[in-house]
């Protein structure tokens, strides 16, 4: 099966920042992303869990984005602008994708 080199970017960010992030990604030319729910976590700002929560103040989501390697820098710049002052994690992995025409 023919596969194509791509980058898998995973951005774990506060739920309240989700739409700001995805708007920024869209502006940076990202054509697709997938949002995974996050159940809980821990970091320098302490531990948290969504169970029983009503407020959107605590809680994160995970935005996963497959892109062509040459688009990576634009994406990271856009993402960084949004997460800069916020808690969260951005990671990048090399991957191969099927149906490259989609990216």
């Amino acid at each position, binding site marked *: 099966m023919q596969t194509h080199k791509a980058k898998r970017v995973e951005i774990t960010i506060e739920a*309240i*920042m989700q739409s700001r992030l995805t708007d920024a990604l869209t502006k940076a030319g990202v054509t697709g992303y997938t949002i995974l729910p996050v159940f809980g976590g821990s970091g320098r700002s*302490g531990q948290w869990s969504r*169970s029983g*929560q009503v407020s959107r*103040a*605590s809680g994160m989501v995970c935005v996963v984005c497959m892109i062509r390697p040459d688009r990576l820098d634009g994406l990271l710049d856009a993402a960084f602008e949004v997460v800069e*002052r*916020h808690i969260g994690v951005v990671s990048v992995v090399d991957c191969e994708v099927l149906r490259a025409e989609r990216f």
Partner: protein
Amino acid sequence: MDQILSLAATNLLSPIILCFALGVLAALARSDLSFPEAVAKGMSIYLLFAIGFKGGVSVADHGIDARLALSLLAGIVLSFLLPLIAFALLRGMTGLSRLDAAAVAAHYGSISIVTFVAATSVLESSGIASEGYMVAVAAAMEAPAILSALWLISRGQGDGRRMDPELMREIMLNGSIVLLVGSFVIGGITGADGLARIESFIVSPFQGVLCLFLLDMGLVAGRGLREGGAVLRPGPLVFGVIMPVVGSAFGLAAGLLLGLSTGGVALMMVLSASASYIAVPAAMRVALPEANPSIYLTLSLGVTFPFNLTLGIPLYVAVASFATGG
């Protein structure tokens, strides 16, 4: 005094308070008892819808009171004003930074709808009437406090950290405001007929849902105390108990000036005394991400909310009764 104590005692032994206490204890003991997020949100939608709808129906029944507009205005003014007072107190009595103090202050200008709901059920069981539009006042008080807090910060830092219009829209149209106002309007339009159709959904089971919701809030508050409790120095802790009393005094003044009923005055006190733990924390995470959420969440949900629920409400009701001679 006697009345306060007996009201407080009855209140402390009501199912809703005991459920909250159960939740706190279970969380402190690290029980795995927990509500799914979806269930908690579902209950909160139910409560907001029911309280808004009933308020609207009551307005439809009693006609639009001339005081409605004035009360809304008073609520908005209070919501703008209280953060300034809270901020001054915090800077005076605690070592919190400007940023953390402003973030905390925003919570105390805004309101906690569950505290409001708990107060209405205390009023009901004491047979004290109140204006149906107080639920609209509650909605009106949610957001202005956020603007005050951001103004406090921008003034201090002069860094032009502005309220972006997107955030403004988010705050004004946040789910709980829309649901509360929307169901208030629907209740107002459909009136007693509409209520008759859904009464056995929004009236009869209300207290029971409130019990489970408070159990869940107890679990969340207890978890917060376990994790974030260490953050709290004596200063902020004392603030968390004093500020609601201070706020309630402003609410009392406003209620009396407006000439509200005993119940209306009591609810105005409760709104002023209560601190947000849903809308404001979310806005603070967006606008002031550097402020420490453990501080404002623990204060609002772990200190002030339980204080109001147990001692505050009976106190405010007693004072309102006394002041209005009701």
